[in-house]
């Protein structure tokens, strides 16, 4: 295994984060904190509890998940798209690195950045809203697993995209609506039955439900199903990446 190669890609990507702290860290932390201020402290104090949890605390897992998903996709897609755009991808393609090592470098860095961001957002949330974490191990496991899964998804988007517009289409047009309709601001039990059934086709429901369970011990679906669905999506993304490297899709002519 070319560990020096993995480390080179990983360090390069992490250095990019350090160079762009305002964009990579400060911006998502501030925008998510606004949700805590508005929906947690201001409006939340006038709203009733959901499953015996204050509204401000209830929305924290969903909002962290929103940032985690968006940043994982953004970090990974941008990380692989930029070398394609600038032409520096030639160096990675001509280097003695396997596709597993390339993915470890890019996706590992993207997931690390997202997890760091998730932890910062959780700590920031504590300034505005009181919350507890019943299952810290599972909370962290969901955080890491989701970051890896959606970084892989972002990596696929970065390979697929042939312009900056396409980099934004899926996160903004698909992922954001799925997160908002996936139980970030409500429990799907609160929806009419037909919409509850439809919601179960939204994969983000399982992520948010499982993550919320780790905090408060309550969930929309069983935590086992949440873990299973996350692993299923992870597997699907891994198969996608494997296919990309096997065929050279949009990488090797």
């Amino acid at each position, binding site marked *: 295994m070319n560990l*020096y190669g993995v480390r080179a890609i990983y360090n390069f990507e992490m250095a*990019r984060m350090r160079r762009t702290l305002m964009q990579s860290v400060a911006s998502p932390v501030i925008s998510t904190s606004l949700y805590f201020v508005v929906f947690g402290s201001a409006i939340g104090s006038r709203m009733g509890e959901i499953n015996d949890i204050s509204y401000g605390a209830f929305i924290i897992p969903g909002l962290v998940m929103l940032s985690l998903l968006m940043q994982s996709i953004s970090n990974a897609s941008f990380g692989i798209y930029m*070398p394609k755009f*600038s*032409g*520096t991808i*030639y160096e990675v*393609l*001509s280097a003695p690195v396997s596709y597993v090592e390339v993915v470890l470098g890019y996706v590992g860095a993207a997931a690390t950045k997202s997890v760091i961001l998730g932890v910062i957002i959780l700590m920031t949330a504590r300034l505005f809203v009181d919350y507890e974490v019943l299952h810290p191990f599972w909370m962290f496991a969901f955080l890491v697993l989701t970051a890896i899964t959606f970084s892989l998804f972002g990596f696929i988007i970065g390979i697929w995209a042939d312009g900056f517009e396409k980099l934004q289409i899926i996160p903004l047009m698909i992922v954001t609506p799925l997160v908002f309709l996936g139980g970030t601001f409500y429990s799907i039990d609160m929806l009419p039955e037909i919409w509850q059934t439809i919601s179960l086709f939204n994969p983000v429901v399982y992520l948010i439900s499982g993550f919320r369970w780790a905090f408060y011990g309550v969930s929309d679906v069983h935590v086992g199903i949440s873990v299973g669905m996350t692993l299923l999506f992870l597997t699907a993304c891994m198969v996608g990446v494997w296919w990309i490297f096997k065929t050279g899709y949009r990488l090797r002519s």
Partner: protein
Amino acid sequence: MGIIATEAKLSNAAPVVRKCCALIHHQQDKPVQPDISVKHLNKVYADGFRALNDINLDIERGEIFALLGPNGAGKTTLISIICGIANISSGEVKAAGYDIVKDYRKARESIGLVPQELHTDSFETVWGAVSFSRGLFGKPPAPDHIEKILKELSLWDKRNNRIMSLSGGMKRRLMIAKALSHEPQILFLDEPTAGVDVELRRDMWDMVRKLREKGVTIILTTHYIEEAEEMADRIGVIRQGEIILVEDKAQLMSKLGKKELRLHLQHPLETIPRQLALEPVELSKDGYELIYTFDSQQEQAGVARLLRTLGDLDIEYRDIQTRESSLEEIFVGLVNE
């Protein structure tokens, strides 16, 4: 013109390296292997365009091989395949004795590539970019080695500068530094001096010669024919995806080069005398020059016969000039055939 020679020949220009290689091979009792071996290589793109057609080519260790060809001939495609950037449609390619598909790690470890375009990460520093390349190619950090390369390429003072602040020539040097960071055995230079000034071009030629002295195999594509003429041991010409010629440079110039004899006459002629009608002679428009063209390898009797005939006809001349065709003229002649 068919394929004149596809068998690799060690050039006269790298005797020390060849001796060393021969000794090593003898001691290991192994047959001499070319550093680059391409057999029946074909490349057909998804849209059906055939970029390479049955390419066969061997490049020996320690030689400078210049690959010439017009735009779109397949030079960059061939390099891209050998370096692993493009996929093979069919055929076999080995680098440093390793199959580029089955033993891609070993093959790629041995290769450094300086691409035609200046692809760099503008926000990275010079030091960071070169260190990244070394790590990517599986080598442990070696600050001393990187320092040496940067100093040799006059980039040491710029080591902490961001790439975006470098001039075009400096960026070109940086691309070379990145390619040399992992100490490759084979170096591909795809149009290395495109857009660089004369001084930098000379510096690069010197650097390439030094690398060759260390035993590095150098494959060079260039539009500057004088670059190939100046540096290459052997020349390959590719046209429409086919290698049409591989030849030792000196032999090529000797074989395909034309010589021109210009006779400046005392008095102008109106037409070429009928006694010279069968000779390859032209008359200049003003009638003051007779131009006799002949192959450089051809026996020289033609010149003597021409001069004798002119003497017999009492045609006086005041000056004689000879000129040998350049590699550029040979190249243009080949690709236009």
